[in-house]
């Protein structure tokens, strides 16, 4: 089956979710681009947007329409060429409208899994529940005569297990987007030995057409992205818990968040990142990964406590941040949660005390947004870490320890065979997590 034919009937499962909606958008745009190719005009393309939450579908379609409009406005130069034979489409606005109609015409929103029975490709972005995923795959496969391919967006569940559970005989691979899929450049590609060459080739071509950076990962729970993130998060949580012997827990959380953001020059502190992903999601991913990890306990009692107290983070439907470890106003942290007291403590009441304890940032430390744009990022970062080695402040010391642990986690992903090379680990952190320098480097040791 050739590339365009494979895309002629696609189903996205969990299409109204945060990941699913992005995957739906990218898939529909790619299907439309195939449809608009001169040789494909007679072919019929369908992308089923399946989600159990019927009430979320109208919003989903609005979101897709807005995003397709933006995409069309960006590529009108190309679209004028693709629609050159449509005499009635003269102005840019005519062409943009026609393109939106064409893309929207491909998408079939609905709640029924039966839509996938005619598909040749299924993108799965339902919740991180291995049993649910396997059950859906099995049901679809048993009712689908096309021997469809299953691309799962799981960030943590091993693909081999899903393949076996659902009886797919190698017709499944991991195609893991980062949040939000429409923006983030990274896709982790997790193949298993029984995948056909044709399927792998198709996955690479699709990622390329979607303008994604592919990093291959071995089929070990958590893969590279969560393999690093979960351990990094656990380290941050434990560092805060240890610090809580010297200061109240909320101050320790604030201190470690600052270390992992400003001292490490990352886009977000670790607690803000946990909130962004969701306290409940991080806890859940650890739970999914933990059974596969020998000699290691990926589990945090502090996450359990927050979860039980109903503090979950994540995002509202409009994309704004819900409160988690931190409380946010206009996207900026203003208070920190203290689980002992069950309340948020305003940063203004203790922030300067913690900062004095940490000590000043070295003058050489740029803000992340400046470092990430600098042409000589590595050199600049190295200079900052050289300063940490001689400063002797709490902040410098904790930052060094943090960066060394991050490096160790990265190197273990390579030695465990999750990642093929140190470079792959660094690419995931640089493109999927927007770090300004890779964790595996020479300057933090």
């Amino acid at each position: 089956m050739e590339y365009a034919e494979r895309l002629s009937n696609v189903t996205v499962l969990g299409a109204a979710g945060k990941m699913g909606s992005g995957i739906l958008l990218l898939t529909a745009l790619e299907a439309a681009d195939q449809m608009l190719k001169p040789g494909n005009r007679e072919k019929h393309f369908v992308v089923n947007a399946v989600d159990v939450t019927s009430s979320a579908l109208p919003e989903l379609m609005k979101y897709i329409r807005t995003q397709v409009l933006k995409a069309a406005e960006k590529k009108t130069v190309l679209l004028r060429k693709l629609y050159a034979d449509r005499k009635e489409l003269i102005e840019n606005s005519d062409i943009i409208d026609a393109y939106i109609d064409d893309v929207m015409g491909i998408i079939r929103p609905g709640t029924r899994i039966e839509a996938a029975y005619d598909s040749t490709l299924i993108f799965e972005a339902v919740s991180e529940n291995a049993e649910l995923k396997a059950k859906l795959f099995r049901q679809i496969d048993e009712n689908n005569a096309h021997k469809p391919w299953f691309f799962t967006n799981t960030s943590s569940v091993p693909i081999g297990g899903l393949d076996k559970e659902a009886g797919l005989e190698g017709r499944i691979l991991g195609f893991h987007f980062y949040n939000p899929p429409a923006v983030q450049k990274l896709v982790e590609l997790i193949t298993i030995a029984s995948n056909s060459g044709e399927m792998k080739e198709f996955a690479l071509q699709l990622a390329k057409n979607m303008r994604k950076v592919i990093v291959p990962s071995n089929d070990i729970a958590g893969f590279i992205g969560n393999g690093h993130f979960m351990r990094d998060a656990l380290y941050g949580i434990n560092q805060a818990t240890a610090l809580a012997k010297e200061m109240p827990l909320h101050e320790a959380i604030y201190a470690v968040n600052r270390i992992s953001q400003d001292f490490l020059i990352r886009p977000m502190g670790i607690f803000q990142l946990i909130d962004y992903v969701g306290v409940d999601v991080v806890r859940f991913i650890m739970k999914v990964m933990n059974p596969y990890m020998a000699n290691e306990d990926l589990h945090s009692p502090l996450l359990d406590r927050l979860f039980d107290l109903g503090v979950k983070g994540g995002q509202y439907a409009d994309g704004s941040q819900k409160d988690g470890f931190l409380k946010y106003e206009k996207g900026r942290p203003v208070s920190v949660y203290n689980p002992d007291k069950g309340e948020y403590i305003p940063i203004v009441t203790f922030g300067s005390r913690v900062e004095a304890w940490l000590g000043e940032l070295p003058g050489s430390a740029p803000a992340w947004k400046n470092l990430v744009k600098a042409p000589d990022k590595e050199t600049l970062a190295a200079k900052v870490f050289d300063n940490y080695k001689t400063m002797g402040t709490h902040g410098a010391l904790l930052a060094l320890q943090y960066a060394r642990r991050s490096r160790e986690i990265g190197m273990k992903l390579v030695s465990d065979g999750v990642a093929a090379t140190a470079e792959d680990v660094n690419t995931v952190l640089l493109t999927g997590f927007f770090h300004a320098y890779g964790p595996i480097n020479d300057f933090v040791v």
Partner: protein
Amino acid sequence: MIAGYNTISMGTGRKEFNPKKERPGLEHYLKEAGQGTLQQIGGAGNVDEGVVGNFMAARFNKQAHLGAFLGMIDPQLRLKPSTRVEGACASGGLALVTGIKSVLSGSAEVVLALGVEVQNTVKAIYGADILAGAGWFQRRKEGHAYFFPGQFSDRAGVYFEKYGREKTRKAFARWYRNAVENARLCPTAQEYENKTADLEALALTEPNPKSFTDHLNVFDCSKVSDGASAIAIVTEEGLKRCGVAPNDAVEIAGIGHAADDLTALPADPARLDTVAHAVKIALESAGITAGDLATVETHDCFTIAGILGVEAIGFAPQGKGADFVLEGHTARDGKIPFNTTGGLIGWGHPTGATGVHQAVTIWEQLTGKAGAAQISIPAEKPYGLSINMGGDDRTVVAIVYKKSA
């Protein structure tokens, strides 16, 4: 001509500009520019007629009938004759020509000439559709998404082919640098606050045909602007009525006004024939040659149009305009300073207002009112020239101004 006034050229580059916030409309700019001129001529009571140049308010702002805004500028203008004129980006120039003809015909002693455009109401990709109305609509389908950048990119492509790409791209970059450096001297200019250190290096960014045109990049293009300009066209009698001193006025020494067939293609894309024709008539009617000019405001909607303008006036033979610019002759300290407040690329291009803005700039230079942007006007060269072009070299208004003796 007396009492020129330019509003700010509003759009990207100005720190007040925020595309997500509501912004002033046509009314604001017309009022500010109109009142700015009226204040200098003893009030609206001295005005006999009004003329408003505007290109596409009907689409940018869903507003036609701009002539009847005159009474909004000042109640004393209500019930006075007022006309809106349109000739694409030469609409401002047509407002001047119309005013001049009224004065010459004896029907008015004082004409308030305005030009206005508010373009930032739509994204650039839709603005391109609107501005494409300056071309022949039957040819829109085959045109580029960014229609006019596409037209002038094609001209640039032919020029590259004939006379060399490298030197021409360098000349484009120099043109851009001159434009921004001049704009930095003029507080109303859109690029007034431009802080880029190496302008020529930036302007040498390779064009990207996938997202824009084959031969031009965004630095080769004029700005998308909101703004208005106003100036009063008066007889000697009118000058007295307004109480303006003769040395605060410039004399209109010559006019060249030409419109070519909108449906015809240029004979040689590396030439602006209509510009050359209109300039020739303007200079002849003023009884001077290009050598008598102290400054020129030319219609540099694109860098290539700037260079072709240099050639059309006759400062350089065909193919040598790029060298003329690279040798520094068009800079503010060169042989013949061009676009001394930045032109369409540096000052801005509120399309229907541009012709009037050019006249105001020359009036400022010849009367010593150009502030930090002031150049010296040699006694033996008391003339300035403006060239306002509509569409792809289709309607052109060239005016020669003379410093009052």
